[in-house]
């Protein structure tokens, strides 16, 4: 019996666009036999109260993720480039619109 249970539907990650003008945001995961069923299940599970106008589903195994942990040096290159931020630049207070 546990064999039929293990005849498992693959895991999908679900991304929902809450409304026009917003990005799709990851909301959770679910199991489904195929893409179409994943979309239907995602609708039933994550948008029962008009939480979305568009849904993406993608097999979890197809996602490449960056780091094991947030302290991973992967993000180091952005840490020392303060000149990328507008606050790096001193502008006299009396210069308008900047």
């Amino acid at each position, binding site marked *: 019996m546990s064999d039929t249970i293990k005849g498992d539907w693959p895991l999908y990650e679900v991304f929902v666009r809450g409304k026009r003008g917003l*990005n799709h945001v990851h909301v*959770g995961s679910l199991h489904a036999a195929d893409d179409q069923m994943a979309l239907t299940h995602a609708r039933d*599970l994550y948008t029962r109260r008009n939480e979305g106008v568009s849904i993406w589903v993608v097999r*979890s195994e197809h996602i490449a*993720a960056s780091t094991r942990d947030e302290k991973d040096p992967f993000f180091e290159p952005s840490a020392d480039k*303060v000149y990328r931020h507008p606050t790096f630049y001193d502008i006299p207070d009396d210069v308008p619109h900047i």
Partner: protein
Amino acid sequence: MRFGAQEFFRGPGQPFTITFGHRVLLPRENHVTLEPNEWSVGKLVSMATTHSAEAPDRDGLQEHFDATIARDQRIEPRDWMPDGYRKTLIRQIAQHAHSEIIGMQPEGEWITKAPSLRRKAILFAKVQDEAGHGLYLYSAAETLGADRADLTTRLIEGRQKYSSIFNYPTLSFADVGVIGWFVDGAAICNQVPLCRSSYGPYARAMVRICKEESFHQRQGYELLLTMMRGTDAQRAMVQDAVDRWWWPSLMMFGPPDDASPNSAQSMAWKIKRHSNDELRQRFVDMTVPQADKLGVRLPDPELRWNEARGRHDFGTPDWDELKRVITGNGPCNDRRMERRRTAHEEGAWVREAATAHAAKQAARAKDGAAA
């Protein structure tokens, strides 16, 4: 461990975009060096240990974990975490998920018997929500490396538990109202603090669930208000349901603090935010005025307002009864488990058919591409 469900676009407990926003909007006076703020402390810890590509030693990981908890930030799926933390979470989240799934039964029995189309539709939506809550929670458990099918097997084989409350029968339609009012009310007391639980996916699932529980509680209370405006027989039904559900509802918060040995560790890990007794007290304080408004009597002779404490005093639930129900000897344990097992087994052909269909479609698509 298999590749578990993922969590993307995240900062510590926040969508990634928000984290990024904080990074960009550094205070003006910090513009020369990027001073560590609450979003970047993880980096500091890493600099204190090692910059090399090799994993820091185990102690460094533990320290990093402890520091994240101490700062009240969220632990996320791919972070290192102690085995005990992972196991405790899987057990708690699975038990919570099972409760939602088994919790469909007591009220589900009333869908066909509800007295109007309006009540049927409401009940249908509520029971569907319970299924949804179970699935949000299984999804959260899967981010810890648990497998949903395996958790279901554990439930069906009686190796994992669900809330004691669902082992009581729903004898009249008033029970549907009282479950919404008491059981979902108690669940809200329990779950609102869990929205700040230290494990990100669990906390986010709780946010979603709490939003929906509010509908559950209100539909129950409204149902009871309607019945209380009805006949004497209807009012008696409400009082009877209140009498039967009050004590089991108080037991939902678990054993008293001095008999709950795992609570301290869960609170240190910030998985749990308040003790069982504190949550029980909150539920009583919240419910008493609602009972007054409704015009029912809560069946506790010791229940009274304590001016000095600014809270209600109340009697002690029958802990032996809780023990009996938890260990499988409640009024409906066998029925609930049997129903869940049957539903799972009778649904097997659907799962298999969907798998076969998907395989056939995939093969056709492949052939079509080759041709």
